């Protein structure tokens, strides 16, 4: 075999080894995106085009936190008062710092508290003198409030509205 021929064979020999590794590495490269398991390992942010094709890729906006949107006073001195619910807790009582200041002689200063958790609102008695009643039952602990269920504080009755 001539020198040139031998050189070609040697080059082809090494070339084949390089080719083998190119195959291995390009295979691994093709899997780069796919090697992730689970959400935390998400690699890179999806491009606008990917999002358009696969809306699942973006984290969906957290679901509406509460189904109830309004607090309405249905009985008592403040009947007709409407309070828009945000995602912050609401203090009910005669104290001036309350979210809804009750002008009700049978209500305590800091009477009860409404707070959102998950997708529901809960009501909790804050140690009032005359108690808080949810659907006629006196509260002993925090309980979820469904829209339309009356909460009685003294002479005042409030309920949540969707």
């Amino acid at each position, binding site marked *: *075999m001539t020198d040139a021929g031998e050189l070609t*064979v*040697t080059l*082809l*020999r*090494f070339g*084949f*080894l390089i*080719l*083998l*590794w*190119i*195959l*291995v590495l*390009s*295979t*691994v490269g*093709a*899997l780069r*995106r*796919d*090697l*992730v*398991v*689970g*959400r935390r390992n*998400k690699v890179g942010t*999806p491009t606008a085009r*990917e999002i358009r*094709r*696969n*809306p*699942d*890729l973006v984290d969906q906006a957290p679901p509406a936190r509460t189904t109830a949107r309004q607090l309405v006073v249905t009985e008592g001195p403040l009947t007709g008062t409407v309070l828009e619910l945000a995602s912050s807790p609401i203090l009910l009582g005669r104290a001036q710092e309350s979210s809804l200041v009750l002008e009700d002689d049978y209500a305590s200063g800091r009477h009860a508290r409404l707070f959102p958790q998950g997708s529901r609102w809960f009501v909790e008695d804050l140690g009032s003198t005359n108690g808080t009643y949810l659907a006629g039952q006196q509260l002993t602990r925090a309980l979820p409030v469904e*829209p*339309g269920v009356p909460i009685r504080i003294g002479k005042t009755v409030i309920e949540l509205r*969707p």
Partner: protein
Amino acid sequence: MSDVLTAPRSRRNIELVLLLLALVVGIGANFLANLGRNEPLGDYFWSQALTLGLMGLFLHIVLRFRAKYADPVILPIVIALNGIGLAMIHRLDLSALSVNPEFTPVAPQQVMWTAVAIGAAAVLLLVFKDHRILRRFTYTSLIVSAVLLLLPLMPPPLGLEINGARIWISVGFGTFQPGEIAKITLAIFFAGYLSTNRDLILLAGKKIGPLQLPRFRDLAPMAAAWVVSIGVLIFQRDLGSSILFFGLFMVMIYVATSRVSWVLIGLAMIAGGVFVALELFSHVALRFDSWINAFDPDVYNRAPGGSGQVVQGLFGLADGGLLGTGLGGGRPDLVTYANSDMIIAALGEELGLIGVVAIVMLYVILVSRGIRAALGTKDGFGKLLACGLSFTIALQCFVVIGGITRLIPLTGLTTPFMSAGGSSLLANWLIVALLLLISETARRPVTSTPMKNSFPEPVGVTGKIGRTRAAREGTR
């Protein structure tokens, strides 16, 4: 665990690119083998290139239509391994022919088997749209496995004894190892059985210390697997398959229950089996002796069960060194069974450590893709099946490469996709088809958008529903 946040893309185009690269590797290896042996490119070169190319592209097209979301790298890897194997078998044929012109080449038959095996894989993909159908055949496949394992023990017209092992049957045009197919049917049975009875096996049983021991009757399938493996060892005198079957069952039961106690019981059973085998069967004892005392001249030259084969392979690997002698440049033909059991030694000699590590890497990626499919798929049967099947490939590679490099005693198992032997090739291609099917179910996008309009609107307190339904009726 299995929710992967990647875009559902079919990735068939990437598969095509990788497939072309794999074909360049497989056909290039054959070209270099001819070049290294100073042979003109004969009929064989073209038949290898055409078979590999056309069948590979055919399977790719089948995937495009039938399993659009299947894993994109499995097919290219297997095509590359198969092509390198064909090239090496052909290269060893050339050496044998130069010594003995009467020698019948092995490679053309292997090319034919490649075509048959890829065709069978395509048929499997076309027939089964979903691997879960196989679960219906849980107990059928147990019976099929038993029949397949018993076939070689039939009297001579059917069963054949070659080199002391009774694992072959004669079919019209040649020989076939039914045990290779049995590993698939056994995997299907184990997957079906364990996915059904998993909870029972998990919950029952006493707890001793940190180990939750299984109930005695839940041990029955494990005992059955052990009996099958020992039976294969005693009656077929095939240590490799016996390790493979028992290892397959142990892995699948561990994956199903994640109980260490099962593995410990299994290992104890293996230790017992190995002890008995060492005492009773000379061929097993000789294997161990030629493993530990491989370089002893007496052991090296011993007529049956000597260590000549392993040591020649090691010399070959040493001769290859880091870069190898180049395809056609070494003397791998000095090793007995260079084209089947010892093909890794032949490749190590001619491609060197760098080449052999690349091949091992291809196996590692292949197995990891199988396990990935198992992680991704939702059904327990598919998980177990994909795990078991990928593990058989891994265990085979470990047993073969470990045996050749004298890490463990040499046992006669085939190197998947590479060794000469049609039944092994067929079985492994069927495994690939099953892994592709499972990966397709794992990666196929699920329709996750809410089903609009298919449910009545939620009944509100306000009684809005009557009004909206009436409104809808009106506009229709």
